[in-house]
């Protein structure tokens, strides 16, 4: 009897002891779980499986200086990327479906999209350089980013082509043009060339002054940048932006032509269905002085040259003051007629024909 019981106990021990006491950690299954463990007990198994991969934060790729190659950080696969430190390098986005969170870090360089990519979002940080959205890019959003150059410079800090673009809550500053034998032009704050369906909303924009011509004898001054320069855009909405200041034109020498002052918003004649509303435009730049050539023009609040029926721009409820040009709102290419409405300063209670709340007003 005792021997029989001993056999049963020994059999039990043999069955129990080979079971592993430590957990078995399995491999990570991408997209399913970050880790899992399985414990087998006889014919059953007990599994602990993480669900961290359900969090978006864990899908991010962190970018650092270690990712710089040949002076750039190349993003060549879709995904979410977050800047882990300030970097001095360009960032080239070469894949669709990229979210680049600048993570309140600073990029000293150019962010560009050099391939026909779509679904690109850039958020929350500072770019000491420029952001260039090149042709064929679609569904691009940039939000909460400060973009700008140090003086001098002639590049527009935010250059846009492509379609379905959204620029939201950004601060953008272009640099002054350099002084040269003929002064350099300044970049525009935002420059659109060949865009379709674009929204620019709640941005604060400054543009730089044109560079002075240094001669030695006859020299042109550079043109100042416009706050927003619109060239060949279709379906553009500019809403709630403040254009704080635009630059003055650069001075000329001798028979050279001084530069033009920057306009708040310039819409070229090749545009279709541009709307600008609820913006504040102030402190446009004066024309340059010094040279006897040409007829430099001071900056207007809005200078619109679209005259094609069916493509006309729409401007409403904007407010301008301290505009250098005597013509504040120049719509539909009519350079001879003011399309805005003067509001006395201080405003009194007798103004505004028919109390139209959609007029474009100016004070000075």
């Amino acid at each position, binding site marked *: 009897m005792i021997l029989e019981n001993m056999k049963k106990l020994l059999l039990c021990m043999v069955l129990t002891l080979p079971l592993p006491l430590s957990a078995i950690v399995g491999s990570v299954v991408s997209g399913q779980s970050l880790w899992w463990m399985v414990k087998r007990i006889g014919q059953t198994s007990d599994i602990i499986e993480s669900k961290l991969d359900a969090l978006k934060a864990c899908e991010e790729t962190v970018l*650092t200086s270690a990712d710089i190659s040949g002076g750039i950080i190349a993003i060549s696969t879709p995904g979410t990327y977050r800047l882990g430190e300030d970097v001095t390098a360009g960032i080239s986005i070469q894949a669709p479906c990229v979210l680049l969170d600048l993570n309140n870090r600073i990029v000293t360089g150019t962010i560009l999209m050099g391939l026909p990519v779509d679904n690109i979002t850039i958020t929350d940080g500072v770019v000491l350089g420029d952001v260039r959205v090149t042709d064929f890019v679609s569904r691009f959003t940039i939000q909460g980013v400060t973009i700008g150059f140090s003086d001098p410079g002639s590049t527009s800090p935010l250059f846009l082509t492509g379609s379905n673009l959204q620029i939201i809550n950004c601060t953008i500053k272009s640099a002054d043009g350099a002084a040269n034998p003929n002064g350099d032009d300044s970049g525009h704050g935002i420059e659109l060339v060949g865009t379709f369906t674009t929204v620019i909303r709640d941005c604060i924009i400054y543009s730089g002054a044109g560079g002075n011509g240094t001669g030695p004898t006859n020299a042109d001054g550079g043109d100042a940048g416009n706050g927003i320069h619109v060239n060949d855009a279709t379906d553009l909405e500019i809403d709630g932006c403040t254009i704080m200041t635009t630059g003055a034109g650069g001075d000329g020498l001798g028979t050279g032509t001084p530069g033009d002052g920057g306009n708040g918003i310039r819409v070229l004649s090749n545009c279709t269905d541009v709307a600008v509303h609820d913006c504040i435009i102030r402190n446009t730049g004066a024309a340059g002085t010094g040279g006897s050539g040409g007829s430099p023009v001071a900056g207007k609040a809005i200078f619109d040259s679209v005259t094609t029926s069916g493509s006309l721009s729409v401007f409403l409820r904007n407010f301008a003051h301290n505009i250098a040009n005597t013509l504040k709102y120049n719509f539909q290419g009519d350079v001879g007629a003011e399309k805005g409405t003067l509001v006395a300063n201080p405003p009194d209670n007798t103004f505004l024909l028919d109390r139209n709340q959609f007029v474009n007003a100016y004070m000075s």
Partner: protein
Amino acid sequence: MKKIIVFIVLVSFSPICAVVGSIVSGQSLWWITQRIGQTADIIESKIDALPICAQTSLSSDDISVNNIEITSPGIYCLSEDVLVSSGITIRASCVFLDLNNRRVDGFISVENNVSDVTVTRGFVFANFAASTLGMRVTSGSSNVLFSDITVKDTAVTGGVAGADGMLLSGSKIQVFNCTVQGGDAGSTSSGAGLAGGHGIEIDTNASKVVVRDCVISSGAGGNTSELEIQAGAGGDGVHIEGTDIEIDRCLIYGTGAGGNGSGNGGDGGNGVGITTNAVSVAVHDCIIRNTGAGGTGPDSDGTDGKAVEDLKTGAASVVSVVYRNVAHNIANAVKYNLQASGEAGVFMAYPPPNSTFIGNQFVNLFYS
């Protein structure tokens, strides 16, 4: 036989499942330990080792001589409330300081001609006996953003002027979505009364400043008991002496009353005060209410606070533009003194009757 049974019992009661330990901040997100007799097998995560978390954490450990000084670019995050009577001073460009909804007892100063600085999300309480600013940008600094911060200067006692909630110098400064309160002045027994702090002061060296979506109040002027001497003035909600200034969609909730004197009472604070030094100021779409009354004195009472006191005159390119604001409960009979020319606002009855003619949507309205 007994030994065998004891052994089996011990083996059977050994834990089969892993024991999950607590998260150790800054070390690992999770760890698991399995004890086997006298040994332990540990699996420990290292997710926190990724550079994504490489922001610099600031705490009381970083205080030196009552000050936290930031001298290198980077992202800084306050990990606990700190008491820094000599403030947090930012002396490097390219700094992002996340107050992380923590409280700074002291002040924050951006100085040393730096640029590209952001301070966000938190509380700054300058509650010391000395007159201490809440937040400051010194002259020469540029591209500075303050957002989502509550700044409060509490009352001081004993011959100390009230401090400004914010003092802005430098260029291209943006203040968004902040709540800012200037401090009350203390009383004195001799000499002139001391001024209450402005909510936000924008000084003569400031340019291209945008203040938007802020709630602002100012401090009261101090009393003085010396005969024939002026008591302290209440602070302005926003006091402006700079160039190219934009005040947009702010609520100026109350301004300080003037102090009482044994000679002249101090002036009450204005909602927005624009001095003759200012150039091209715009104030629009703001609500201004509850300005402070002038203090009393046997010789004369102080001037009551106006909604907007704009003393700038001159060419169209330099004067202020003030439009589409609404004021009520303004202590002074003149609500909007624009370009130093007397009342320029439009009265509207309350409740607003449908018969009231407002022919210009840009007028500055007042109810009371």
